[in-house]
């Protein structure tokens, strides 16, 4: 009798553990096809619009961005980790801009999760962000993802007229050594 109790208890525990671990490890994934349909507010400045190859004041979708590879950073002006990471991301952007093979073909887009245009602009000015930032006040990005959206999250996307938008890599949290991440971007360029 006692053995049965022990066995039952152990089985129950094991199930609990597996369930817990699998929930904790629920992988964050973006549905690229759904993301391609999301309409974002255009960035505030003309410079940012030109950078993305956009014009006008209407909302835009990611496939309209003039790029072979899009690096999306989902951030929040309020997120202290995003603030601490801002200079590192700027550095990554500078590396891309100074590489003739990547400049003009790889575009960076910051998506401010839960942020208003005003809040996104505070972040842009504070950290002198040279790429485009747009607000996502309604947390749309979460709606096209599985797993909990944490900030910052980086998604490298390949654009292709035939295949459409595809996810090359997703990274949650700080980037660390950006020269390593540059390799991921170059890999995405080769595949696109």
């Amino acid at each position: 009798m006692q053995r049965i109790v022990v066995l039952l208890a152990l089985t129950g525990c094991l199930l609990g553990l597996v369930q817990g671990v699998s929930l904790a490890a629920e992988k964050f994934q973006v549905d690229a096809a759904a993301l391609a349909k999301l309409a974002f507010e255009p960035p505030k400045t003309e410079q940012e619009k030109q950078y993305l190859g956009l014009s006008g004041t209407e909302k835009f979708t990611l496939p309209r961005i003039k790029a072979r590879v899009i690096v999306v950073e989902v951030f929040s002006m309020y997120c202290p980790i995003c603030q601490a990471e801002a200079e590192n991301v700027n550095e990554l952007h500078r590396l891309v801009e100074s590489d003739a093979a990547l400049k003009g073909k790889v575009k960076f887009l910051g998506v401010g999760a839960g942020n208003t245009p005003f809040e996104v602009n505070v972040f842009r000015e504070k950290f002198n962000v040279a790429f485009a930032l747009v607000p996502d006040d309604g947390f749309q990005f979460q709606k096209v993802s599985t797993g909990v959206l944490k900030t910052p999250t980086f998604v490298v996307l390949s654009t292709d007229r035939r295949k459409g938008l595809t996810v090359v890599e997703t990274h949650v949290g700080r980037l660390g050594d950006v020269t390593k991440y540059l390799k991921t971007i170059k890999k995405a360029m080769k595949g696109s």
Partner: protein
Amino acid sequence: MAEHGKRFAYREIIVIVTGLCLLAGAWAQGRSAGLDKDIYDPGKMKPTASQTKLKVGDAAPDFSLPDISGNAVKLSEFRGKKNVILSFIPAAWTPVCSQQWPGYNIARAFFEENDAVVLGISVDNTPTLYAWTNQMGDLWFPVLSDFWPHGAVAQSYGVLREDGVSERAIFIVDKQGTIRYIDVHDINTMPRLEDLIGELKKIGK
């Protein structure tokens, strides 16, 4: 007698093993629930759970509270010098709160343009606030502990909730010590920065 002892030990082992396993399962699930590994997610809460009697035009109740460096900060010290934003947050280590002050931290220029200072207030004790605000970077404004008598300042502003945490509330107090703006916000959501800055601009220097 010896057999009885053996059976007892056996039962104890069962209880201990079961307990440990359950704990391990709960730990793994807890980590997934929060936005970050250190953030506790209380789930969706009742938007507000108190009723302030204060209104715009009233004199702001004065108080003195310790900041995380151990200095006492008195509201009336700012009289004639600065507009003061009192930012009550419900609790340390919870999702929205953990980002609200880092937001104010990088918006410093907007507050200074309007001759304003932020006083962050929480009912947590000083050591908790110290550890929590450490991961926000260097905050330019004081963080005050309204721990003891528990939540007394939150109470005097009518924003202490029934469960002992405070509302997510903002009071703007002008240089004359008069309340110019009150936002007892939905505890689950972030007050918009532009709303706060807009109200500050109305008061001016």
